[in-house]
């Protein structure tokens, strides 16, 4: 895919910039937009963001690497995030992580060879009342069992 935004996306970048007293603040929403479109933040994508944001590449790289949710390598079509922090751990979060890891042969922050699925062990997602929980891409699944996860992952294929 060519690394270039459409004119609508450019308009969106300008809108983001206008929301803040200084345009630099738009970098997070623009990185989100870039990740959504290009899948992950490769060096080329970050250089592109740096050029349209008028910011040094080093700054874009610095910001992108500060946050765990910006992907610095390709991730799966379905990015499965398993919380193993305390409340989820107390209710079986680790078993869930191990199950998915074994089933798909991938570890933390790894992606299956066909790019279909990737796995991440995440810190508390703010869903402790629904522990154990996982998230697939942007959706939370709370109070979940291994059987339900298998069914969801089978159904989503």
């Amino acid at each position, binding site marked *: 895919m060519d690394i270039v935004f459409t004119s609508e996306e450019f308009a969106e970048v300008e809108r983001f910039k206008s929301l803040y007293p*200084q345009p630099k603040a738009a970098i*997070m929403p623009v990185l989100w937009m870039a990740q959504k479109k290009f899948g992950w933040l490769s060096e080329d994508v970050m250089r592109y963001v740096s050029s349209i944001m008028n910011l040094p590449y080093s700054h874009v790289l610095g910001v992108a690497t*500060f946050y765990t949710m910006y992907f610095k390598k390709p991730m799966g079509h379905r990015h499965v995030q398993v919380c193993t922090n305390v409340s989820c751990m107390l209710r079986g979060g680790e078993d869930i992580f191990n199950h998915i890891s074994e089933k798909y042969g991938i570890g933390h922050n790894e992606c299956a060879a066909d790019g279909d699925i990737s796995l991440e062990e995440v810190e508390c997602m703010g869903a*402790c009342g629904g522990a154990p929980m996982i998230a697939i891409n942007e959706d939370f699944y709370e109070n979940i069992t291994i059987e339900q996860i298998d069914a969801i992952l089978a159904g989503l294929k």
Partner: protein
Amino acid sequence: MYSVPHLVLPQISDLHKLDVYVANGGYGQYRKAITMTTDAVIDEVKRSGLRGRGGACFSTGMKWSFMPKGNDKPKYLAINGDESEPGSFKDRQIFEYNPHQLIEGILIAGYAMGITKAFIYIRGEYHKWVRLMQEAVDEARNRGYIGDGMKQTFGGNYTLDIVVHKGAGAYICGEETALMNSLEGDRGYPRFKPPFPANKGLWGMPTTINNVETLATIPPILAIGPEAYSKIGAPKHPGTLLYGVSGHVNKPGVYELPSGTLLTDIIYKYCGGVPGNKKIKAIIPGGSSMPPLRGDEIEGVMMDNESLRAYNTYIGTGGIMVMDEDTNIPKVLLRISRFYHHESCGQCTPCREGNGWMEKILRRIVKGDATSHDLDVLFSVASNIEGNTICALGDAAAWPVKGFLTKFRSDFEACVKPTREFLSPNIAHGRRQSAETLIQSV
């Protein structure tokens, strides 16, 4: 709309819709606020006794009064919805079920401090709740409840606009100065204080940072009056709190109750007790950075900051984590330390390195490879982090370590060997029996 204790989350269905909110008197407290002087509004908040719900329990009215008067330069309000402290999941309820009350609270705060622009910072993982909050903000703007349309809706010249900003996965951005750096488009490194945000905050301008729940509490305070509010719950930490209960309880969730509610009532009356009727081993009362309580000391504990201080712990975010008698305490502490190590931004040596050491020592303890000497080293590392860092993440990491080690010493001792044994002693070790004698001889 408001009947105690349902002030922040009134039990009205579809309250997230603007029409329903307005039909129940919503935005009426803002109308009332603008008939008062700004000082009078701040004074009401002060008299209510409201203390911040983001963890530090600072007086909200006091914080607002630190903002400089006058409109010669822009001032900003940042609303902290980063909500990443393990065990905390309460602000999310407000985004989902009562976003307009948060917006109304922002309007009142903005009016009181002369602020015309507010930023709601929401953690990136909350995709859905970022969306819901954005929808509520857009609806409010389209219908003239925020932005330029306010002049027509409410009269007068004051307007305020709100930007919803999505984080991208960094616990540290909940720390108020890190939040400001993140919002400005930099790495989310905490800033050294002073200068305090009220003098030099976002883009160098006076800024107030408040938690989501704090601001959502403002409309009910004006509605029922500051005196009535200050009489709810514990006198020194009044009002209702959103207790988020998780872990080993039958009905986990968010419960809005008066401050100072008995911990045992929260667990047994509201949350239906512990699965399998097991005994409680430990409770973290306010998010993972707060020192734990032992299961055998929770009788009579009241859940407000002042009462908890008597037990050397604090209310924090009100996120209560319950652990039953079968819980492996060293393992829980390892998980907590792993978290703080992962989330340390790395600016301060004690936090960056100390957290790494604590995680490593705890790993050894959990594996059964540690000695009793390691427990003392662990405690001293925690003590050397505490108070020696730029931001309070250092303290947040040290407190649970010191708390768990102190209150559950026997659990840790059961995992460690009295002295270290070497599997293949080299020449030096061959002359000495253990690491302990080695250390003593130097």
